[in-house]
């Protein structure tokens, strides 16, 4: 790995990485079962330099902003490097947003250049708000031959000969503006510096190192803070390889693990849960001696790895399971939403550690991560090196708002001094999340501050915490709200919790389901019990990282349902 302390900016570190490992593979891109691109670090440089030179000739200069709206692919990383080479500021936008939202954010960040995939560009040009855009140049990838590009340039042809001028930046200079997936309607552009990323990279790789030969499967969107770090910067400064898949169809994702012998992958809890479901179904199909033997092996593995993971040993004991993941998988990362401990434990017992972590865009990538010494399924791990966390105004149980200070914390919100002042107070970033530290220094999360309720008895209740009791409920999705949060009331008395249910298509709310709800509800202490349920007629809105957009959902519900729709349990 490069010694990141010696670098002043991402551009220099990446430039050195391309020189240091010229013959190592840095990128593989596959579409279904066909490999489309395989680049060494030297090849990567050969593709990026003419693009960077063309940017220079188009007067893209130090501090200029270039937005990227692309799905995960090699051209994403090549474009980002070309921007950094010119000392530019990157604005990675979530490709899942609507055209109107894209245009709103492009205007908000005052991007000069845009690099975008053709189908997304087509949607932008068809949007009524398109005419007012102020972009200077747009580069479109993979446009069909006869496509009308509405004044944009083809990415593949936007290249010039000659060495581009490298522009070095300082650690405190801005390198990215990343829009937080927070659920408000007001754009929250987190302004992040070179120092933020270099320090974040150092802390993450201290616990989960990359090296030449390591392969990271990039599934989370690269615009997301996690994939940008562990699916680009981290592997590159260590000479490792990033694998992109142009499809998320489960059968091809499964094949990719095996074909490319993946070492690490990051997944949102929902996908991890899907993987668990599929694997459990396969294991349940086993009969007789095979089933007995597998159970014994899992029990043995569990005992042998109780203090720390022993991946090589687990691969031998449970070879068929590990072969299904390619045989080289060392760990999976997850975070970004509340993860069910039983899922983490399920994979750990099979010898596949899932490192659960906690982070937010405002603080780079990750604040805490499970260090697996030993594995803990019930926490989001310990603070990463260099990250200082504290609990503000803890209650009698030690629970309070998590605040963070450290080199990975963003500089400010773009053009929003008021929000910045509310969020960063005396150098501490207020996360809005509630947590406490246990005796071993692990952070436990209990929910968002705003959806928390305080009972008449003075006890705090965290709806997200209660959701775990309903884990595995046979419905499509569910979540818990405080009734006063849905229908604001000026009193905290007679507060109750509401279980919002989204049934599967054609599923009926049966008496058996009602009984199941009642049984599970009784497992909770009386002050935490759910008072009633609501049936929701549509899927829950979710962020790019699959977190439920609780504020948006609450607003939608407020419009269509009132307290009278509540069915008491």
């Amino acid at each position: 790995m490069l010694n990141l302390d010696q670098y002043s900016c991402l551009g220099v570190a990446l430039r050195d990485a391309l020189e240091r490992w010229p013959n190592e593979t840095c990128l593989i891109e596959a579409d279904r079962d066909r490999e489309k691109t395989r680049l060494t670090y030297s090849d990567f440089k050969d593709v990026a330099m003419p693009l960077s030179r063309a940017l220079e000739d188009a007067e893209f200069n130090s501090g200029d902003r270039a937005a990227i709206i692309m799905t995960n692919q090699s051209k994403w990383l090549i474009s980002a490097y070309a921007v950094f080479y010119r000392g530019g500021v990157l604005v990675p936008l979530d490709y899942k947003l609507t055209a109107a939202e894209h245009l709103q954010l492009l205007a908000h960040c005052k991007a000069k250049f845009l690099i975008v995939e053709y189908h997304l560009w087509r949607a932008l040009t068809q949007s009524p708000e398109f005419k007012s855009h102020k972009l200077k140049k747009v580069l479109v990838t993979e446009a069909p031959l006869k496509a009308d590009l509405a004044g944009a340039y083809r990415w593949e042809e936007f290249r010039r000969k000659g060495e581009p001028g490298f522009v070095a930046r300082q650690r405190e200079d801005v390198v990215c503006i990343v829009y937080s997936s927070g659920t408000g309607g007001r754009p929250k552009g987190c302004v992040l510096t070179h120092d933020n990323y270099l320090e974040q990279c150092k802390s993450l790789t201290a616990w989960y190192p990359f090296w030449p030969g390591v392969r990271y499967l990039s599934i989370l969107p690269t615009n997301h803070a996690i994939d940008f770090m562990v699916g680009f910067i981290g592997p590159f400064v260590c000479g490792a390889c990033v694998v992109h898949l142009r499809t998320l169809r489960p059968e091809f994702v499964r094949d990719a693990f095996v074909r490319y012998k993946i070492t690490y992958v990051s997944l949102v809890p929902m996908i991890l849960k899907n993987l668990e479901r599929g694997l459990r179904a396969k294991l349940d199909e086993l009969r007789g001696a095979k089933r007995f033997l597998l159970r014994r092996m899992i029990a043995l593995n569990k005992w042998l790895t109780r203090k720390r993971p022993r991946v090589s040993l687990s691969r031998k004991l449970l070879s068929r399971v590990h072969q299904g993941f390619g045989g080289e998988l060392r760990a999976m990362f997850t975070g970004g939403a509340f993860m069910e401990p039983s899922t983490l434990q399920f994979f750990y017992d099979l010898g596949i550690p899932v490192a659960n972590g906690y982070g937010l865009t405002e603080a780079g990538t990750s604040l805490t991560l499970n260090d697996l010494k030993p594995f803990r399924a019930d926490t989001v791990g310990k603070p990463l090196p260099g990250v200082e966390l504290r609990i503000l105004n803890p209650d009698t149980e030690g629970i309070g708002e998590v605040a963070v200070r450290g080199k990975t914390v963003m500089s400010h919100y773009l053009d929003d001094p008021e929000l910045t002042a509310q969020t960063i107070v005396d150098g501490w970033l207020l996360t809005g999340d509630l947590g406490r530290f246990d005796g071993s220094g692990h952070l436990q999360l209990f929910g968002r501050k705003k959806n928390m309720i305080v009972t008449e008895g003075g006890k705090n209740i965290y709806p997200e915490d209660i959701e775990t009791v309903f884990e595995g409920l046979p419905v499509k999705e569910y979540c818990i709200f405080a009734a006063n949060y849905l229908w604001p009331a000026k009193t905290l008395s007679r507060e109750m919790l509401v279980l919002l249910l989204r049934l599967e298509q054609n599923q009926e709310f049966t008496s058996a389901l009602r009984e199941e709800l009642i049984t599970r509800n009784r497992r909770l202490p009386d002050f935490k019990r759910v008072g009633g349920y609501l049936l929701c007629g549509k899927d829950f809105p979710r962020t790019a990282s699959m977190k439920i957009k609780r504020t948006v959902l609450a607003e939608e519900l407020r419009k269509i349902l009132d307290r009278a729709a509540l069915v008491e349990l």
Partner: protein
Amino acid sequence: MPNPDQTLTEILNLAAAHFKVSREKLTPDDDFFKTLGIDSLQTLDLLTRLEHHFHIELPDYELQGVSDFRTLADRIQARL
């Protein structure tokens, strides 16, 4: 090669059969996420079925943001 109207009709028929809903409930401008109550992973299932039916390949990224049957039919027609 089917004409655009035929393509659209075939898609609606296949979607109704795949998700076991009444064909009469589906109209070309329906948002299929809402009408069928499906998520993005279930949509990928439908796309795989449509690919087999029309003998074409529909890249996931090409369909990013497509949520109604008519636009889906346009994209498929362009590949026939």
